[in-house]
């Protein structure tokens, strides 16, 4: 085992750095750069079982498996995440209502502790370590390899359907209908809309195309790169207002065949898109609200955002199903989840996010640590009541900026 940095420096595994806040940072400590663990170990093309080192990216897995008729069981909105990161944050995708989160499809992984012990964890074997490490924010040790069960696909195409909805109630009605027909569902919400238009947006649903239904392979799209961060954010109240209005009204095909990349990873082709928010950057905010409270709480969240005049361009709404991975700190739980982005305007933005937290807390919901940079320790303990049980599994040499922040250390 390679030597860890000398005490008292703490360590934290770092995958590809795609979480938005400080769960992947360790200020004053050391990061273990896990991208070096990037080899495939075994692939059974008949059963769809893949074992790989934990630093392998989802994009590298897709390049290997899609042409062989397999697809990740769950995929987040970017393919530039590592397997280890997908477990540590127990990531979810557009199929949560059917498939649950990523951790539910992990067959096994190896956890390397700082004392040199190697634990092979499966849902049955070392099950307590498994549940602590799924969603465990990298704090339980270094994940060295992972085995996942893939899902069968007939071809790389997605049958996608888009539908505009004029209000939150219309969304709720549409959602019940579409979830029954499609494995992948998600909605974009126009956060700048107020009053009667509150909660309007576009419903997007998709399924893997059946055999025979496909087009010739699309030509490779060249990725664009945002070359530098402008001094001020290009995403601001005015641009969001116009973008959202335009995007809402843009004519779009109701139903069509699309390659899987733009369907699952719309932002992956705009490299360094975070630079659009300028040098001060942005905050993400993703909460989940239990079903019973969802309608009222979501209305309240959207109303507070619209009233604040701080728009969100990439507002996304989806229902989480009842399936959970069992992770002690896993974020996905039954309810409706809303993901938002806000340019960093300093105190104003912090105040808005704290006021959203107030709604989330009262509704008995939770906020996603992978996207957080500011939630209070009190909020965290309310959202993740099993934190004390979890903390027994933390490796004594491991820590993170996030963990010290919410634990008040």
């Amino acid at each position: 085992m390679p030597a860890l940095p000398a005490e008292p420096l703490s360590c934290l595994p770092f995958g590809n750095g795609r979480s938005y806040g400080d769960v992947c940072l360790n200020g004053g400590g050391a990061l273990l750069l896990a991208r070096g663990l990037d080899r495939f170990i075994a692939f059974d093309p008949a059963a769809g079982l893949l074992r790989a080192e934990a630093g392998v990216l989802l994009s590298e897995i897709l390049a290997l498996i899609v042409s062989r008729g397999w697809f990740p069981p769950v995929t987040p909105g970017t393919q530039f995440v590592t397997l280890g990161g997908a477990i540590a944050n127990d990531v979810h995708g557009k199929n949560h209502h059917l498939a649950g989160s990523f951790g539910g499809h992990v067959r096994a992984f190896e956890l390397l502790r700082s004392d040199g012990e190697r634990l092979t964890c499966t849902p049955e074997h070392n099950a307590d370590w498994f549940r602590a490490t799924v969603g465990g924010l990298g704090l339980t040790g270094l994940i060295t390899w992972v085995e996942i069960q893939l899902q069968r696909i007939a071809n790389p195409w997605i049958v996608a359907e888009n539908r505009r909805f004029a209000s939150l109630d219309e969304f709720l009605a549409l959602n019940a209908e579409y979830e029954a027909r499609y494995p992948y569902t998600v909605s974009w919400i126009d956060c700048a809309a107020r009053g009667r238009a509150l909660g309007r947006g576009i419903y997007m649903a998709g399924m893997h195309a059946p055999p025979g239904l496909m087009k010739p392979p699309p030509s490779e799209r060249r990725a664009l790169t945002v070359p530098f961060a402008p001094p001020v954010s290009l995403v601001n109240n005015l641009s969001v207002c116009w973008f959202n209005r335009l995007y809402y009204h843009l004519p779009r095909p109701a139903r069509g065949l699309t390659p899987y990349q733009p369907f699952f990873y719309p932002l992956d082709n705009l490299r360094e898109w975070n630079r659009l928010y300028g040098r001060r950057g942005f905050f993400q905010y993703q909460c989940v609200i239990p079903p019973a409270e969802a309608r009222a709480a979501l209305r309240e969240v959207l109303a507070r955002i619209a009233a604040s005049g701080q728009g969100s361009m990439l507002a996304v709404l989806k229902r989480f199903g009842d399936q959970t991975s069992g992770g002690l700190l896993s974020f996905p739980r039954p309810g409706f989840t809303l993901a938002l982005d806000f340019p960093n305007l300093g105190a104003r933005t912090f105040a808005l996010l704290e006021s959203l937290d107030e709604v989330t807390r009262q509704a008995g919901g939770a906020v996603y640590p992978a996207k957080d940079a500011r939630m209070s320790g009190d909020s965290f303990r309310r959202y993740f009541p099993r934190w004390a049980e979890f903390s027994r599994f933390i490796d004594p040499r491991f820590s993170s900026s996030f963990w010290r922040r919410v634990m008040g250390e």
Partner: protein
Amino acid sequence: MRNILIIGATSAIAEATARRFAAGGARFHLVGRHAERLAAIARDLEIRSGQAVTQESLDLDRLDAHPALLERAEQALGGIDVALIAHGTLPDQNACQQSVEQTLAAIHTNALSVISLATLLANAFERRGRGTLIVIGSVAGDRGRQSNYVYGAAKGMVSLFLQGLRNRLSGKGIQVITIKPGFVDTPMTAAFEKKGLLWAQPDRIAQGIVAAVERGRDEVYLPWFWRWIMLIILHIPERLFKRLNL
């Protein structure tokens, strides 16, 4: 489907290059020093290429073992189409200055063993009338500098040797490619502070190597801008150059 022999297959640049070749369909025979790491790379390449990968671990400093090594590679692959020689060490310049033994050992590994393998491979390619030989050199081999002239002298020797080999085999259907990477973020350079625009990732070098093969290039600086940096460095008069702190 190309049959590819990689010598020094555990090097980061070699591994990245192999992955790019694997995506285009290739069969590999790997040679390297560390059996365990070689096995992990072989397994990874088998999955990526969908083809069986053979391997052999060996200390390449043993020049007398080279002929048999290449024979086994020929047999395993059923003929070598492409050979990539990528093994090497980055010697400690200060230690070398104080030790003739260490200086000669560095030159043995980085120059003599490469020249031995290149000679044998070139002759085998010449008998068959085709083949591609790729050797990883270095920008350090273009001009001697106080900070790493032992390594540079070895790489420079390889570079000159390959020029002659290329000249000899030109018109015989055999491609001889010298790759001259600049600063690359690999385990070999782990001791360096890797910040700044001059540092490249191994995959960027790999991409350049595959492109050099496809385009039939002779000598390639990677990334491309090193060609212009080295052009300037080569043209500084020695009277001035000897006083620079490089």
